[in-house]
Structure formats: C-alpha cells, structure tokens
C-alpha cells in the first residue's frame, strides 16, 4: 500500500491544493472548460431539439445520431482537433461540446414531443399560435427531461475534459498525465480520486438542482413522470 500512502501524503499537503496550478486552480479551470463546452452544446442543441420536437420531424435521424456518436472515440477527436491546430484546452472543449450535443438534442426533442397531446390541444383550442404552444405549453412540460439531459451532459463533459491533458491541455487530467509521465503513481491515484470525487459531487448537486427546476406535478422520485401503458378496460 505504498502508493496509497504516497497519494494520501500528496493530498494532505496544503501546498498541493493552494499553489498556482494546484488542485484548486486546476479544478476552477476544469469547471470553466466544462461550462464553456456545455454552453456551446446547449445553445445549439436545445433550441434545435425543441423545434424538431415541435414540428415532429427527424425522429429517425435522432436515433441514428445518438447511436452513431457513441461509437466515435472522444480521444481520437480531441487529438485530431489538436493536430488540426486547435491546441489542448480548445480541442478538448470543442470535442466535449460535440459529444454533448446528441444527449441534449434527444432529450429536448423527446421532452417537447412527449408533451401531453391533450395539453397541446387545449392550448390550440385557446387560440394559441404554434410558437406560443411551444413556449407556454410544450417547453414547460419538457423541463424535466431537458434538466435531466443537462445533468447527464454536465457530468459527461466533466468526465471528458481530463482527456485534454493527453493533448497538452489543462484541467484536472494534468495531475494524472503528469504523474504517469514522471512515474509518480501516488499522484496518479490521487488525481484519479480527485476527478472521480468532482464528478460524483457535481452529479449530487445537479440531482438536487434538477429536482428543484422540475415543476412539482411532474416529479416522481426525481424523474419526470412518463405515462405507462394505459390500463385495459375490462
């Protein structure tokens, strides 16, 4: 358990945390990169997904996109972007944004598309225009799924950003990459623990946030209610 001791000693040193480019600095950098990547993806994916869901187009493309992007290795894309001249952080942020788009797109699409048809009809019957139905009926009903999509996306991006370190970028992955490069495996272990904890804590915080933004009637155990098969009349 020599490595474990080494990791604990390293983590226990206040300087590890507070020096410039210490854990605190790297965490801030990590979170800023995450925020930029998620923002880029959200600006693009949520309006598009909502609009496609509203018009009901492109459901086949949605499924294909979701499946296809899963097969593409993120590391390959980051390294390709980096080799294309977009270095370290930029490459990782862009790659993370690219991989965040399908999740957000599918969730906003499904959320808007899955809005109760009776509610949509009621909106139309009250004389709402198509756009008003989208903004005042379908989108509020979709908040649960969109929030769930954002949570998944943020956690996924936080997990992707460490790969930046392999392409010469920053963020918390640096601790792991640097530790491997210098064969200080205690630091590798410590870096892994820090990254894992960040992801877990963020997921926990977001779970609470997700519950808060989901309108009360839509909440069921923190998940948006989706009607199951209707009971058959005898």
């Amino acid at each position: 358990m020599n490595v474990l001791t080494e990791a604990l000693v390293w983590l226990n040193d206040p300087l590890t945390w507070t020096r410039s480019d210490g854990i605190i600095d790297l965490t801030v950098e990590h979170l800023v990169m995450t925020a930029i990547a998620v923002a880029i993806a959200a600006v693009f994916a949520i309006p598009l997904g909502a609009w496609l869901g509203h018009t009901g187009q492109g459901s086949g493309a949605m499924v294909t996109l979701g499946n296809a992007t899963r097969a593409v290795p993120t590391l390959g894309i980051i390294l390709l972007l980096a080799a294309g001249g977009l270095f370290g952080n930029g490459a990782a942020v862009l790659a993370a944004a690219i991989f965040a788009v399908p999740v957000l797109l599918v969730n906003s699409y499904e959320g808007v598309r899955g809005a109760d048809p009776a509610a949509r009809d009621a909106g139309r019957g009250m004389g709402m225009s198509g756009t008003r139905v989208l903004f005042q009926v379908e989108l509020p009903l979709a908040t649960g799924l969109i929030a769930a999509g954002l949570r998944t996306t943020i956690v996924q991006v936080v997990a992707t950003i460490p790969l930046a370190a392999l392409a010469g970028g920053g963020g918390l992955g640096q601790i792991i990459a640097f530790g491997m490069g210098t064969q200080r495996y205690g630091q590798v272990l410590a870096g892994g623990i820090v990254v894992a904890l960040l992801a877990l804590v963020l997921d926990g915080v977001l779970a609470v946030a997700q519950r808060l933004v989901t309108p009360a009637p839509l909440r069921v155990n923190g998940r948006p209610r989706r009607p199951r098969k209707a009971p058959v009349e005898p």
Partner: protein
Amino acid sequence: MAANPWFSWTYVVENADTLWEHTVQHAVLTVEAVAIATVIAVPLGILVSRIRWLAGIVIGTAAVLYTVPSLALFAILAPLLGIGRTPVLIGLVAYALLVILRNTVAGLDAVDPAVLDAARGLGYGPGRVLVHVSLPNALPSVVAGLRLATVSTVAMVTVGVVVGYGGLGQLMFQGFRNNFYRAEIMAATLACVLLAVVLDVAIWAGGRALTPWRERRRA
C-alpha cells in the same frame, strides 16, 4: 514543412501490420471485457429482479460507479494493480457490467405478468418459468444492453492509453506525439469506429438468430 494530410491511404497500406495488430488487441480486450461482464451481470440481474430490496442498493451503487470518469477509474486502478492491461480490463468490465445489469433487470421487469401467470397455470416451476419464459422474453433487452456496452467499450478502450494499454488509442496518441501525424490519428480513429460497427452488427445478428419469434410476429 512536409505535407500532413488528414487521411492517407499510403499510410494505411504501409502500416497495415501495425494497424491490424492494434485492432486485434483492441477487439480482444473489448470482447473479453464484455464477456466477463455478461457472465457476472446476467445472473446478478436475475438475482436482483427477484429480491426487491437488493435491487435498489445494487442499481444505486451501479449508477454511482457509472458516474466515475473512465480516465479516473483507470488512474485509480493502475497504481494499485500495476500499469498495463489489468487495470484497463477491470475498468472496462465495471462499466460494461453496469449497462448489461441495468438492461437485464429492466428486461425481466417488463415481462408481461399475464404470460408468467399462464406459464404457472400450465404447471411450470420457478426454474422453468425463468429459463423458458422470463429469460427469452427479456432477451431483446439484454441484447440491447450488450450492444450498448460493446460500442461504449470500444470507444473507452482508447482512454486506456493513459495507463499504457489503449489498443488503437495507442496509435492515436503516438500519431499526436509524432509531430501531429494526422493520417495515423485518423486511421486509428476510423478503425475504432469500424470495429464498433462490426461488433454491433455481429451482436445484433446474434440476437436476431436467438429470437426468431420476434421476426415472425412483425411479418
């Protein structure tokens, strides 16, 4: 500065041996991880779907574990297990296990209670209900889990490069280190996608062969 094309067929031809070697390494690692995960996850899924209180704990733990980034998991396992293949394999098994487990439980839960009742009414014991009714009915869901796990695993193997065993990821990284040799990174990335597609289609075909009644129903 020498030309640095995004894709070069010459590179692929001249380095066919290296590419093949890494693709095989990648494929073997993936198949091994998914196979081990299946052997653990399916029986565990059966157990969990019978014992309700266990389901919450197991699925909850699985969800938490799934949140841990793969890079972090490899980084935690490598110093403890030694650099190289073992930590990558164990990490991959862990993630694949979660996906397959979730789908097995979901598949078993979704079996029509009327069908189970009918089987019991015909005098089937619990073991026969499981083998002849529940499992065949849950099979499509399990296969879907297998496909998802396989495709994600293929992509995740590349992250293993951080602990020195990443299959095709090794080539990507080497290309990056080697003066941003785009053709090498691109070839390895494409090989990775291709491998995922091939394995996915293979499992899909296998699943179809195992559930011939689904085809008949649709026709």
